[in-house]
């Protein structure tokens, strides 16, 4: 199949320089976009049916279309790249950040042009040091050759891009909490509406898009929305970076057509399970998605199909649970993480997640009681969207609720007994 996002990436090698990137056709899309109106660029992205790759799958074109445009809009407007990849099991954006920084920069410039933003920030997680070094170097090349800065490429459009290195915390990946973090505050979510596209950074219209989402933009502008939709096996446009981790023979990240079935990833790309380990279940798109069992392995990996089987595509980076891993222990590990990472802003999440984590710890230690399963069921039912300020706790409940359903017998066998797996 045709590689789009990863075609310039040289594994273990240095990323393309500006000159090499341009030789490979880079910055052609930017020149084309600058000859179009911002609204025309937006229309192309809408027609391409690009769904946000950060995990929520919101249509990018629709997000952009909600930004106030023209002379009456408040300025400056901001374009922010969410490069705070911290979803448990996710390692796909790192590949794009380290492997082809100019692709991201070109995507940012076109996106900022489409929403008339004059300042962009790349919100990068602290641990991605190599990505930071490569981005800063690519940005300075882009400034030096007038791909960035005032009146870039001789047009009337000006843009600055700054890399903001985060101070850590999973919470920063939530779009509104990310804006609080960028303003130098604690990373707590914000009340909405108004949405950030109307009232975001410092009260100004702000678009927040994921790294992989932004990297798709130059290709859509260059080859058109129809071509982009034709890359996919389903209605959702484009290719997708999928990942597999856990006890498989070859963990990794691959670019494949959107809608590739789970089984093809597991068998053809990750080469199946390691010797001595059997397949039990998987989390399809990071820690905050629901478990998928063997019976659903032929499901296409896209947003709609994953939702139809009661889970989410999320980041598209799956974590395999083998038959030698205790499901209660694995969920306890996850919930301990979510409890630690709760920002503490809303009570259900701040109090509920530690309660869940402690209950699971007790179960694993052999101190569980029969009513503990009711406590877990209760949280899985009530820590859902509409009861919490943001999606952190509802996301945390997805692996728990599905584990309580699929692995009920294992939970019950932990009551009053040491973990049978230890």
């Amino acid at each position, binding site marked *: 199949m045709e590689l789009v996002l990863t075609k310039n990436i040289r594994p273990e090698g240095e990323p393309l320089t500006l000159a090499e990137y341009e030789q490979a056709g880079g910055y052609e899309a930017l020149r084309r976009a600058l000859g179009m109106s911002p609204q025309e660029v937006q229309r192309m992205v809408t027609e391409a049916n690009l769904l946000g790759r950060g995990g929520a799958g919101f249509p990018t074109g629709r997000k952009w279309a909600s930004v106030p445009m023209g002379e009456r809009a408040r300025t400056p407007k901001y374009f922010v790249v969410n490069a705070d990849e911290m979803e448990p099991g996710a390692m796909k954006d790192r590949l794009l950040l380290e492997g082809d920084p100019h692709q991201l920069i070109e995507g940012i410039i076109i996106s900022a042009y489409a929403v008339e933003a004059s300042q962009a920030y790349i919100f990068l*997680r602290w*641990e991605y040091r190599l990505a930071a070094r490569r981005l800063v170097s690519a940005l300075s090349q882009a400034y030096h050759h007038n791909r960035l800065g005032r009146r870039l490429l001789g047009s009337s459009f000006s843009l600055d891009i700054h890399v903001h290195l*985060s*101070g850590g*915390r999973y919470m920063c990946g939530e779009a509104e909490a990310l804006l609080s973090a960028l303003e130098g505050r604690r990373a707590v979510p914000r009340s909405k509406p108004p949405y950030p596209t109307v009232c975001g950074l410092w009260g100004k219209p702000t678009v927040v898009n994921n790294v992989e989402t932004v990297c798709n933009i130059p290709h859509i502008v260059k080859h058109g929305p129809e071509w982009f939709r034709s890359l996919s096996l389903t209605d959702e446009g484009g290719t997708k970076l999928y990942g597999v981790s*856990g006890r498989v023979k070859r963990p990794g990240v691959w670019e494949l057509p959107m809608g590739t079935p789970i089984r093809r990833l597991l068998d053809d790309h990750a080469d199946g399970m390691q010797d001595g380990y059997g397949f039990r279940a998987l989390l399809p798109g990071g820690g905050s998605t629901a478990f998928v069992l063997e019976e659903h392995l032929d499901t296409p990996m896209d947003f709609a199909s994953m939702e139809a089987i009661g889970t989410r595509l999320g980041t598209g*980076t799956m974590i395999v649970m083998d038959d030698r891993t205790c499901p209660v222990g694995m969920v306890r*590990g996850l919930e301990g993480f979510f409890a630690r990472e709760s920002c503490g802003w809303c009570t259900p999440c701040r109090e509920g997640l530690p309660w869940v984590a402690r209950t699971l710890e007790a179960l694993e230690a052999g101190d569980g009681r029969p009513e503990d399963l009711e406590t877990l069921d209760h949280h899985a039912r009530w820590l859902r969207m509409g009861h919490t300020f943001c999606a952190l706790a509802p996301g945390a409940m997805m692996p728990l609720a599905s584990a309580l359903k699929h692995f009920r017998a294992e939970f019950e066998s932990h009551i009053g007994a040491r973990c049978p797996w230890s």
Partner: protein
Amino acid sequence: MLTDRERQRIEAEVRLYPHPRAAVPEALKIVQDHRGWVPDEAVREIAELLGLSPATVDSTATFYNMILREPTGRHVIFICDNVSCWVTGYHAIRDHLCERLGVALGETTEDKRFTLLPAACLGECDRAPAMLIDGDVYGNLTPEMLNDILARYD
């Protein structure tokens, strides 16, 4: 307290944002870069420099897990305790480190050489289990590899 070099770096950072408060995380990281952690006095002086209250600066300083408000050892180990590492051998790595260093998670060795801290997913899931020492990433870890790795840090 703040050296001229620290002040210069912080002032350069302020110019990148429309409001000085946005420079707080970077200001804290600059101090940490020079001293290994962020003492109370530095919080007060950053506040002064940016025209904010010390409480405002500290509200940010106490939120982010990479900003350290207590003294650490000369090297900080962040061990990933997340799900991909969890299923591929995190426990053996953690236990070996704790035993070898004689500390629990969150503690510093007596000779002030290492501080051991838990970390959120490091994005190294294809090379799990993983850890980070002073910004260097180590993946596909086995307990046998740890002694050699630790020996690289004095």
